[in-house]
């Protein structure tokens, strides 16, 4: 096994794990298959004090992402209502999906078209307004496309940097940190908080990402390649956290 044999999904796992670096003792709440694996990888390596959920009503200490209920190492009973205690006190970093996202990280999970009579009803606002106004938020987009990365989202469910700035003090807890996709890692580390291309995954060009993005990205002169998993990280992903390979079904490696 060598790091150069890493699959695209494994590069995504590491990129998402990196979102949690430096977070300390908070609830890492990555939603989705690859984000869930990533949260466990971060805790197993460089962020050992993170808390993670079993996806239902418990915080668990297992490194394995998908375990039978009787094999869970339980830390805390965490029913849905407890989630708001973490969210509203600023002790959570969520990774959400996005049906649409714009250059300032405004997210839409609710509906396509006019909200009052949508052409496509999606999930709804869910917890996005509360997550984003209170805590650090990152996004996971398993298919980077111009349909997701749009000039303007139809409904703002998750608050982006421009709207946070307009709120002034009331928006002080907004922290949209990263967007990880199957092609690249993006962030908002620009003077005006516009989305920036942070790195491209191995085998992906800057032009590929620009073509798959429906708005103008901030593209630095030099765009690095996303970090490859270390051999130890690959071992943890393949043998401990996700031995069944669920990650490869969410992001198949391009032929």
């Amino acid at each position, binding site marked *: 096994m060598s790091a150069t044999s890493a699959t695209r999904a494994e590069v995504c796992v590491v990129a998402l794990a990196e979102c949690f670096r430096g977070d300390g003792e908070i609830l890492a709440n990555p939603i989705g298959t690859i984000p869930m694996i990533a949260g466990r990888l971060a805790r197993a390596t460089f962020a050992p004090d993170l808390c993670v959920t079993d996806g239902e009503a418990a915080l668990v200490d297992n490194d394995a992402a998908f375990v039978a209920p009787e094999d869970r190492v339980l830390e805390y009973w965490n029913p849905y209502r407890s989630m708001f205690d973490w969210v509203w006190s600023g002790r959570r970093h969520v990774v959400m999906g996005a049906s649409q996202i714009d250059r300032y990280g405004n997210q839409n999970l609710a509906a396509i078209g006019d909200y009052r009579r949508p052409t496509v*009803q999606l999930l709804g606002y869910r917890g996005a307004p509360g997550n984003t106004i209170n805590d650090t938020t990152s996004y996971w987009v398993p298919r980077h496309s111009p349909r997701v990365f749009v000039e303007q989202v139809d409904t703002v469910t998750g*608050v982006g940097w421009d709207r946070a700035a307009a709120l002034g003090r*009331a928006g002080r807890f907004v922290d949209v940190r990263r967007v990880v996709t199957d092609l690249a890692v993006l962030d908002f580390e620009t003077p005006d908080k516009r989305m920036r291309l942070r790195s491209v995954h191995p085998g992906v060009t800057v032009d590929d990402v620009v073509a798959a993005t429906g708005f103008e990205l901030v593209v630095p002169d030099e765009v690095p390649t996303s970090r490859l998993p270390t051999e130890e990280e690959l071992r943890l992903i393949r043998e401990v956290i996700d031995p069944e390979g669920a990650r490869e079904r969410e992001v198949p490696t391009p032929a």
Partner: protein
Amino acid sequence: MTRTATDKLMTVDEVVARLRPGMTIAIGGWASRRKPMAIVRAIARSDLHDLTVVTHGGPDLGLLCAAGKVRKAVHAFASLDTIPLEPHFRAARQAGAIEDEPLDEGLVHLGLQAAAWRVPFLPTRVGLGSDLLRDNPRLTTFTSPVPDEDGEHELLVAMPAIRLDAAICHLNVADRRGNAMFLGPDLYWDDLMLQAAPTGCRFISAEKVVDTAELAGHGCLHQMRISRMMVDGVVHAPGGAHPTSCEPDYPRDEAAQRAYADAAASPEAWAAYRAEWVDVPEEEYQRKVREGR
């Protein structure tokens, strides 16, 4: 003289008879988990109409939309868990058939808590900066009359009380007086919904109905979260959450849920589903589930 406690045991039809058209009804459970489906099916069969449904939405909301019972949905989402989007709710929204009052999940919590505590609103920053303030005109902002930790008077959202006319929930085990326990991983918002609803219209169904002296033996003290002070009617409804999960009594019936979801494909598919699984007495529904399909 021995005390004689009120016996609240009733049938699903007696519950439905206490409901009125136009009511605002909270439905317990979460997505496709521990939903009071026996009562929901009875509402779908009834002549009730123009209901406002407050829910962490699952097949409760979808079934009532498909049956034409819903005027307005008050919700943060609707999902069938293993089927991410609730297809019947989706169809109703895309057809413009229902009004929609969107909330964040946490705002549902605050709105129910405000109603239960009899205050007009509770303060929060949830909603600021999002389009909730555009899409839900009941949400307003105000400047805090009380300074924050830095002495600033910050902008906040007033989450109004979600005033209910009725609440329905499904629990694992209850007594005839309305004390009940959840035995699965999560109570969801069941207790708060029952506390937010007015006396006379708070109903639970349960997998088992036992004597009060036996109740505690079914779990532990911390699971005794539904008090008879919150409940006006108890329905004995084994399988009453089907096809949603009711852990640890039974998991979600994925095949039955798939059949329900597939019925959103066309009016004909819905009519066939309805004839087989909705327009039948609950006893017959449960017999068909037991005998398999």
